[in-house]
C-alpha cells in the first residue's frame, strides 16, 4: 500500500510522517532537482506500506519551486489507475486555510482521508463536531490524530486498511475531475498573470465555502475563540519579547552565542570518549590481527581517518539540535521577521535567513532550502553566498587549528577562549557572505519584484520525537556521505604513503643499514613519507603554497580536502600516524604542535594557523556543494564563478595574513 501526505506548511505533516516511520525513513531528492523528498515505510498488520511526505502547500496554485513539486506530484497521482491514498492533514488550530486545499484535492478525484491534527488543549467534542460536519459534506472519511503524542494513529492505520481498495473517480477525459486537473495544470504552467482573475475567483469561492463549513456557529465560535485566544495570548506574549525591536535582536544574538558555546563545550566529553574508543580500536587491531600490510592499512589508515570524522558527530548533533528547536518551536519565522529589512540591502530576503542559518550546518541542504525563495535573483545571491557560512564540515578543521593556537582551558571572562575564536570565525564567515552578497547585488542585473509573505505559526513545544529524528537523520547522512569519501581517501593515502618510486624510499623500505644507523626511527618515518608518492605530490605543489606558510604535508591535506573540507583532519591524522612510526599515541593536535621546522621553530606558528583558518573559511572545498549548485542553477556557469571567486579570495587573503604576520 502507498500513502502520500499533503497539507499546509506547519500543519503537523512531518510529525505524522515521523510517527508512522520512526527510523525507517530516508531523505533524498526528487529526480534531477534538489527539493528534499522524504520517504519511509511502516507496516499495518504485517503488510508493508510506503509513505511520502510532500512539501507543504496552501492550494494547488503553486508559487515557489517546492510548491510546484508538491502540486505536480499530486497531479501525477491523479493520472494513475490506482493512486495511493492521500492523507490531507488539517491543523485544528486553523482549519479554514486547510479546507481550501482539501476541497481542491477532493475535486482532483484522489482517494483521500481527512486527518485533523490536534494538540493537547483541543477538546474532543470540538474535533468530533468538525468531523461530523465535513463527513456529511464531502463524503470521505475524517479522523483525528495527535501527531506529537501518537494518539489516534492506530485508528488511522485501521482506516487506511479499509480504504486501500477505495474506488477512484472516473479518469474519463471529459469528466469534471479531468477538467479540474487540466485547469490546475494550465494555471500553473501559464505565464503569470493570464489566469489570475480565474484563480482568485476560484480561491474566493472556496474560502467562502470553507467559511460555511464551520460547525454549528454558536458551538464552534465559542471553542474557536477559546483556543484562538489561548494560543494567541501565549504567542502574543512571547512575540512581544522575541519580536521586540531591541530585545528581539538581543535574544537572537545571545541564542547564537549559546549555540556556539554549546557546540564547543558540551560536546567535549563525548568527543573525548569517541577519540579514546577509536584509539583503543586501532590498538586492538594491531594486537589481534596478524601483523601485515592490510592490518597496518586498517589501523593506521582507515581507523584514524574515520575517527577524524566520527569525533565531530557530537558537535554536529548539537548544531542540528538548535536548528531543529528553532524550526519546531516556530521561532525561525520570527527570525525572518527580524532580519528581512537588515538583509534586504544585500540583495537577500528574510527568507534567505533560514537557508543562510542552515548553511551553518551544511551548505547542501541550505542550498536546497533556497527553493522557498520566489525571487530568482534573491535565490541566486543566497545560493552563491551560502558556502561562506561556517558549515559543520569546517568544525573539525577549525577545532583542530584553534587547539594548535591555544589551550582548551584558556578563557576570557566567563567565556572559553577557544569558543570565542570559533564565534569570531562564524562572524567572519557571515561577514564574507554578506560582503559577497552586496557585491553580487551591485553587479547582477535586477530581476522582478520580490515578495515576502509568510505565516507566523503559533509557538509550540518542540516534539522530542521530531528533534531526535532530525538530529539522527542529519548526523547519519553527514557520517555516511563523508564516511564514504574518508574511507576511500584514507585508503588511497595509506597506499600512496607506502609506495614510492625513488631510491631513498626503496632503501628505507628495505631497512638498509646505511639509513637505519644514520637516522632515528621518527626521522626515518618522515624521510620515507617525504619520498613516497603522496610526499612527492605535496612537494610538487609546495612552491605554490609556500608563500602561505604551508609545507608539503599541509599541501597533501589541501589536495585531499578539495573533495570535502573535513578530510583535512583525517588526512593529517593519517599522515602524522604514519610519520611517527607506530608507538606514539598522542592526539593529532599534540603531534602537530610538536612538529618543528628545520630551524627548530614550531611548524604551526600563529601566522600559519591563522592563514589556514582563513583559507578554510573561504575556499570552495566541497564537491557535493558544487554538484548541488550545478543541479540548482542548471549549468556550470555559477558553480565555476563561485569556485574561482571563493578559492581565489581564500588564497589571496591567506597569503596576505601569513606575509603580514610572519
Amino acid at each position, binding site marked *: 500500500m502507498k500513502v502520500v501526505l499533503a497539507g499546509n506548511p506547519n500543519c503537523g505533516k512531518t510529525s505524522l510522517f515521523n510517527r508512522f516511520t520512526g527510523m525507517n525513513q530516508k531523505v533524498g531528492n526528487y529526480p534531477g532537482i534538489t527539493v528534499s523528498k522524504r520517504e519511509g515505510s511502516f507496516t499495518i498488520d504485517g503488510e508493508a506500506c510506503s509513505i511520502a511526505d510532500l512539501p507543504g502547500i496552501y492550494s494547488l496554485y503553486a508559487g515557489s519551486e517546492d510548491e510546484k513539486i508538491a502540486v505536480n506530484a499530486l497531479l501525477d497521482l491523479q493520472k494513475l489507475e490506482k493512486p495511493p491514498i492521500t492523507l490531507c492533514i488539517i491543523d485544528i488550530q486553523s482549519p479554514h486555510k486547510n479546507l481550501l486545499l482539501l476541497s481542491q484535492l477532493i475535486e482532483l478525484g484522489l482517494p483521500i482521508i481527512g486527518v485533523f491534527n490536534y494538540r493537547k488543549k483541543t477538546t474532543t467534542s470540538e474535533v468530533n463536531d468538525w468531523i461530523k460536519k465535513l463527513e456529511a459534506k464531502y463524503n470521505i472519511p475524517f479522523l483525528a490524530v495527535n501527531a506529537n503524542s501518537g494518539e489516534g494513529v492506530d485508528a488511522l492505520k485501521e482506516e487506511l486498511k479499509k480504504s486501500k481498495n477505495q474506488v477512484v473517480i472516473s479518469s474519463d477525459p471529459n469528466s469534471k475531475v479531468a477538467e479540474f486537473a487540466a485547469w490546475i495544470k494550465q494555471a500553473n504552467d501559464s505565464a503569470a498573470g493570464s489566469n489570475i482573475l480565474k484563480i482568485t475567483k476560484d*480561491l474566493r469561492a472556496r474560502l467562502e465555502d470553507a467559511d460555511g463549513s464551520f460547525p454549528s456557529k454558536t458551538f464552534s465560535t465559542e471553542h474557536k475563540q477559546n483556543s484562538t485566544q489561548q494560543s494567541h495570548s501565549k504567542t502574543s506574549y512571547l512575540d512581544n519579547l522575541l519580536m521586540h525591536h531591541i530585545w528581539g535582536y538581543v535574544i537572537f544574538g545571545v541564542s547564537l552565542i549559546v549555540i556556539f558555546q554549546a557546540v564547543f563545550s558540551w560536546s567535549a566529553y563525548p568527543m573525548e570518549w569517541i577519540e579514546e574508543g577509536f584509539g583503543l580500536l586501532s590498538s586492538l587491531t594491531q594486537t589481534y590481527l596478524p601483523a601485515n600490510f592490510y592490518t597496518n592499512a586498517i589501523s593506521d589508515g582507515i581507523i584514524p581517518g574515520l575517527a577524524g570524522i566520527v569525533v565531530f558527530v557530537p558537535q554536529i548533533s548539537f548544531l542540528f539540535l538548535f536548528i531543529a528547536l528553532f524550526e519546531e518551536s516556530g521561532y525561525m*519565522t520570527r527570525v525572518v521577521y527580524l532580519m528581512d*529589512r537588515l538583509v534586504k540591502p544585500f540583495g537577500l530576503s528574510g527568507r534567505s535567513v533560514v537557508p543562510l542559518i542552515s548553511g551553518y550546518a551544511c551548505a547542501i541542504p541550505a542550498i536546497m532550502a533556497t527553493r522557498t525563495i520566489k525571487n530568482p535573483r534573491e535565490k541566486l545571491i543566497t545560493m552563491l553566498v551560502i558556502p561562506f557560512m561556517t558549515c559543520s564540515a569546517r568544525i573539525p578543521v577549525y577545532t583542530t587549528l584553534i587547539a594548535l593556537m591555544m589551550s582548551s582551558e584558556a578563557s576570557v571572562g566567563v567565556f572559553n577562549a577557544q569558543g570565542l575564536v570559533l564565534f569570531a570565525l562564524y562572524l567572519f564567515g557571515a561577514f564574507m557572505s554578506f560582503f559577497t552578497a552586496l557585491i553580487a547585488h551591485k553587479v547582477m542585473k535586477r530581476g522582478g519584484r520580490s515578495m515576502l509573505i509568510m505565516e*507566523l505559526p503559533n509557538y509550540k513545544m518542540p516534539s522530542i520525537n521530531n528533534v531526535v529524528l532530525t538530529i539522527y537523520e542529519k548526523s547519519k547522512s553527514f557520517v555516511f556521505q563523508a564516511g564514504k569519501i574518508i574511507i576511500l581517501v584514507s585508503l588511497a593515502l595509506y597506499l600512496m604513503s607506502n609506495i614510492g618510486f625513488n631510491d631513498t624510499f626503496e632503501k628505507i623500505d628495505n631497512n638498509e643499514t646505511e639509513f637505519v644507523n644514520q637516522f632515528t626511527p621518527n626521522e626515518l618515518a618522515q624521510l620515507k613519507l617525504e619520498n613516497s608518492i603522496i610526499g612527492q605530490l605535496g612537494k610538487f605543489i609546495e612552491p605554490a603554497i609556500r608563500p602561505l606558510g604551508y609545507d608539503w604535508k599541509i599541501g597533501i591535506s589541501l589536495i585531499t580536502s578539495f573533495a570535502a573540507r573535513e578530510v583535512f583532519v583525517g588526512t593529517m591524522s593519517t599522515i602524522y600516524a604514519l610519520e611517527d612510526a607506530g608507538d606514539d599515541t598522542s592526539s593529532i593536535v599534540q603531534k602537530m604542535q610538536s612538529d618543528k621546522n628545520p630551524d627548530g621553530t614550531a611548524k604551526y606558528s600563529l601566522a600559519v594557523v591563522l592563514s589556514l583558518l582563513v583559507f578554510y573559511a573561504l575556499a570552495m572545498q566541497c564537491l557535493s556543494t558544487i554538484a548541488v549548485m550545478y543541479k540548482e542553477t542548471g549549468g556550470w556557469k555559477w558553480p565555476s564563478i563561485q569556485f574561482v571567486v571563493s578559492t581565489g579570495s581564500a588564497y589571496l587573503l591567506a597569503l596576505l595574513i601569513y606575509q603580514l604576520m610572519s
Partner: protein
Amino acid sequence: MKLSQAPFNEPLLVIQISDATLEIKLLELGFGFKSECNLVRQAPFNGPFTLNNEKTQIILRSEDANRIEVSLLPSL
C-alpha cells in the same frame, strides 16, 4: 488608506489589493478582499509588518502593505 499607514491594533477591513499575485497569496492565507484584520507591529527600519486575523498571523513587507487598501472598522 494604505495598510502601511493604518494604525496598529485597530480593526481593519481589506477593501482593495492592487496586485493579483499578492492577492492569491493573501487569499491562501485567509486575508483576501473584505477580510478583517489587525496590524500588530512593524520591524525596525521600515521592516516587515505583522498582520493578524482571528485565525492566522502573517508577516509582509511594507512595500506589499502599500498595495493593500484598508478601511477602519468601528471598534467593538
